[in-house]
């Protein structure tokens, strides 16, 4: 026998009341937990994926779209930019590193990116098996892509136009898998890497393609005046026909942040997009939705607090005689006071523990079921220090809700209650 057994038995004696109070609170806590897990992990992923990229240069259009397309690979390109124009920007003394990207195709919704090794280095990509792509039409797969498409080194596949599953297939050009990357927990896991030339080749007209093939293979040896492009060495510098989708830039100095966007935007066909600025904008847009859901969760929690208060207050009326009897058996005022506080505390603690478990469970379920969620790499098994705040906060809520009933219990005039007045 202890105060805890006493409290537990009182709660057990009113199972429906206890269950609804715990459920109500756990619902609110679960919503908060889910939002916390999603927003924290999403924010971390987004910041990590944009790390090391100071500026993205693409075709004129929405800067947010340029970021979504070229960093997160979840949107369509704004258009193409001329290679020689990109080269001009890349040459600027404020640019430390420039990485070309050629997008357009995908394989079962996984984007094929024509780029160079610097792109993989950006995310510290390492090979798990096989090799890096070297020749045209060779690809290296991200870890998730390999896992979900079941492709292995040596396998061939045809790419489809666009990002969706049903796009026009380029059957005449088969890519060959040469390697698979280790999981890097970044966007690299969800993409297929190849060189820029492969993307060009797949998209060229038949006649032109053969002609170009000869040209591409022979060019470096044939012409002694050949100056390779700083972005794509197989092409001559200043080539006016070739196009790429975008270019990722790293600044040499903070001065770049001030001058480069201006230089880029001054060219009518180019658009500069800053990942830091655009992701901040994205967060603020998403933030509205998160805030609304958060508000809803807080309303739930306040209602559950009220419900616990009402339950304790009502049960106290029925229990006045119980309390008086306990006092007559030697219980001090303080003991009676504490027993009511414990009851409130127990209810909210149970509710918040249940809510936290349900929140993590829901995220796990979601991450395991939906492929889109799987791609974001969000996991239900991540715990944040904020969860301690939720736990302690709800415990405090329980104590606050129990304080008025507990004071009443403390003040009970035992003689009056027992005399039946």
């Amino acid at each position, binding site marked *: *026998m*202890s105060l805890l*057994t*006493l409290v537990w*038995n*009182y709660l*057990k*004696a009113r199972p429906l009341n206890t269950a609804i109070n715990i459920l109500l609170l756990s619902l609110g806590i679960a919503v908060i937990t889910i939002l916390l897990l999603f927003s924290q992990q999403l924010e971390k992923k987004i910041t990590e994926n944009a790390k090391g990229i100071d500026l993205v240069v693409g075709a004129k259009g929405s800067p947010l779209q340029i970021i979504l397309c070229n960093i997160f690979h979840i949107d369509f390109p704004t258009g193409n930019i001329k290679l020689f124009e990109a080269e001009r920007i890349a040459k600027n003394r404020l640019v430390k590193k420039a990485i070309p990207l050629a997008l357009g195709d995908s394989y079962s919704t996984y984007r094929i990116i024509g780029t160079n090794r610097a792109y993989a280095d950006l995310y510290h990509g390492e090979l798990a098996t096989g090799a890096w792509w070297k020749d045209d039409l060779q690809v290296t797969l991200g870890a998730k892509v390999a896992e979900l498409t079941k492709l292995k080194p040596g396998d061939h596949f045809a790419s489809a136009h666009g990002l969706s599953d049903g796009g026009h297939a380029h059957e005449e050009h088969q890519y060959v898998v040469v390697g698979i990357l280790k999981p890097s927990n970044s966007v690299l896991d969800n993409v297929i890497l190849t060189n820029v030339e492969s993307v060009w080749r797949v998209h060229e007209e038949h006649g032109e393609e053969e002609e170009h093939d000869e040209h591409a293979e022979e060019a470096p040896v044939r012409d002694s005046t050949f100056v390779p492009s700083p972005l794509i060495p197989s092409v001559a510098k200043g080539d006016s026909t070739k196009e790429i989708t975008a270019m990722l830039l790293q600044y040499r100095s903070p001065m770049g942040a001030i001058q480069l966007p201006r230089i880029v935007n001054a060219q009518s066909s180019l658009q500069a997009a800053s990942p830091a600025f655009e992701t901040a904008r994205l967060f603020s847009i998403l933030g509205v939705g998160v805030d609304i859901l958060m508000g809803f969760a807080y309303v739930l929690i306040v209602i559950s607090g009220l419900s616990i208060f009402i339950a304790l207050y009502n049960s106290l009326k029925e229990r006045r*005689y*119980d309390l008086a*009897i*306990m*006092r*007559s*058996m*030697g*219980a*001090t*005022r*303080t*003991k009676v006071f504490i027993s009511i506080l414990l009851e409130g505390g127990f209810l909210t603690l149970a509710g918040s523990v249940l809510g936290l478990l349900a929140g993590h469970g829901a995220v796990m379920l979601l991450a395991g079921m939906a492929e889109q969620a799987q791609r974001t790499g969000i996991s239900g098994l991540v715990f944040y220090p904020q969860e301690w705040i939720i736990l302690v906060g709800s415990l405090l809520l329980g104590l606050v809700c129990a304080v008025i009933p507990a004071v009443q219990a403390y003040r009970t005039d*035992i*003689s009056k209650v*027992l*005399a*039946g007045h």
Partner: protein
Amino acid sequence: MISVRNLSYQYDGTSRAIQFQDFSIPQGEHGLLLGESGSGKTTLLHVIGGLLRKYSGTVSIQDTALNALSEAALDGFRGRHIGFIFQRNHLISALTVEKNLALSPYLAGLPIDAARIDQVLASLGLQEKKKSRISELSHGQAQRVAIARAVLNKPSIILADEPTSALDDKNCERVITLLTDVARQNGATLLVATHDQRLKDRISNRIDLTTAP
């Protein structure tokens, strides 16, 4: 041993005051507190039981003057030395019979002695009801559990407030026999407050409040 000297009690917020006659009941003996409703029986019982504190005069239990104790000390004293039996055998319905009994030593700050619980239950013929819920008990059984709870801590005083008023003759007879027997077995002083004239013949030591000076 109960001793009451110069006791008067003033009701809260009224000018009504009751002056009680002096009396004392030696340890182990039984006393009957007789009086009509409103004569102050319950008040006197609550003062002796340490449930009411604002009075003038002296009430001593086992040579301890109750108004010399702090409130918390009085709570402890009540738990260890006084057993209450009320007209409505109020048991904690959320707990089983066994837990209702265990509550008594726990709240009094005494060690919980499972053997003592078994012994008291057995002496009242309640062994089989040990794990029962309160709602499963008959009225008579509930009354016996209430008596068991009152004597569990071996109190020196047992105070009973109208234990028989709602009972028929047969049950009245049974309960008063039970009370006196249990008090005798535990060496406790029994004080019964009642207006039930049937008890007059059973307990000779009478304090009549209707003829208070």
